[in-house]
């Protein structure tokens, strides 16, 4: 019944693109910046990886587990070198990236968590240089409603959630894109189970189902 929508809400980088306001703003900033070293920072689940994989086509995306040799192998002057989860990089590698960026022949984009980025950027050799920092904020409630509605409409599901229920979902997820996806996935899983068992109480999505999903995801204390 709801298998398609459950799949749509699965947390994967290859999912459908949702161009939220935050996304567009961040993208504009990234494209306009002329600095050779850029930082894309934000809280976990704000959609950093999603943005990197979907919006940057002319680039080289590297994993944080890369070594110095791998980096040397992938170095290209024409393309933007993106390193996701850059907080996991060794300090020596970060230092080398900085030196390479200083030559102005290579341009890098380091995507990392907000807390770790703050620690790295506080270092003196980063302070003194030309660096562009783009921060991704959690999406607003309106954006979240828009995202869920568009996803549901794509699968011919309408008027399944009331405004109060949207409010509740936003209260639990706090605009975290990953959590929203997870929440919706679990919610539809539970709804599907209830309907296959012919539980009349859960014919539609109700408050109880929402709290149940919140408990399952650990967003609500028992």
């Amino acid at each position: 019944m709801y298998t398609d929508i459950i799949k749509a809400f699965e947390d994967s980088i290859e999912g459908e693109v949702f161009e939220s306001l935050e996304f567009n703003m961040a993208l504009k900033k990234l494209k306009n910046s002329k600095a050779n070293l850029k930082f894309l920072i934000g809280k976990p689940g704000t959609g950093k990886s999603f943005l990197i994989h979907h919006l940057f086509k002319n680039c080289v995306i590297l994993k944080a587990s890369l070594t110095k040799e791998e980096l040397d192998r992938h170095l290209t002057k024409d393309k933007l070198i993106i390193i996701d989860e850059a907080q996991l990089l060794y300090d020596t590698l970060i230092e080398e990236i900085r030196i390479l960026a200083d030559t102005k022949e290579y341009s890098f984009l380091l995507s990392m968590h907000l807390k770790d980025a703050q620690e790295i950027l506080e270092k003196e050799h980063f302070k003194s240089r030309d660096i562009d920092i783009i921060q991704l904020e959690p999406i607003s409630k309106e954006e979240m409603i828009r995202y869920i509605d568009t996803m549901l409409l794509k699968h011919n599901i309408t008027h399944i959630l009331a405004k109060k229920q949207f409010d509740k979902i936003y209260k639990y997820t706090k605009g975290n894109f990953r959590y929203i996806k997870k929440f919706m996935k679990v919610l539809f899983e539970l709804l599907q189970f209830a309907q296959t068992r012919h539980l009349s109480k859960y014919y539609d999505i109700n408050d109880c189902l929402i709290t149940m999903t919140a408990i399952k995801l650990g967003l609500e204390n028992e």
Partner: protein
Amino acid sequence: MNEFFELEKKCKKLKRKKFIKNLFLTFITLIILGGGYYLFTLFNTKPLQKSKPIITLHKKVIEQNITKKIKIKQNITKEQNITKKIVIPKKVIKKEELNVTKCQIIIKKQIEKIPKKVPVPVIDIDINFSNKKNIENKTQPKQKKIVEKKEPKKEEKKVEVVKEKKKSLIKDETITFKKAYILAKSYYDSEDYVSSMKWCKIASKINNKDERIWELYALNLENTNQKEKAIKVLKTYLKYKKSLRLKYLLQRLEQ
């Protein structure tokens, strides 16, 4: 999929917990509000309790009521006395109406027109003490004389009252014109002309412009067979001040 039912149970538990929480919170807020209101009322009423104005006010009201009641009683007794005294002169007046002069008839008519001021012509000395207007009334002495002459039994009572008044006034160290005049008049009424003249002199020392004291003094002199002196006294007064009453008295004495 036992997980679903477990989650359902947990959800119900949570709901119960939330309900109890909300109840507890509302209960606490109600207590706080109630307590606050109680304290607020206490705080507002405390100064009133300390000063106790309500009780004092009550006391004052009670006292005022008592005094009013006493006053009313006194007035009633006075009125009763007055009515008693009024009855007699009316009869006297009826009998002697033929002998009364024209002036006296006019005065009587005027008095009869005013219902409450009827007792004025025959007012006792007691009333004269309490009422300023009665003292100033010019018709009093002549009518009193009539009353005194006709009823000798009541005179004795009056004399006793006068004596008591005299004693009380003499005991009082502060002598005013009013007191001196009253004493002089009371002595004159009790036919003690010598002591009346004494008090007339004392009163004139305090206020020599008052015609009543001069008149009384002249009448005293007349009664003690000192007509010439009385005429002199009246003339000296009339030199400085105009008084129709004293002029008529002078004319009468000169005749």
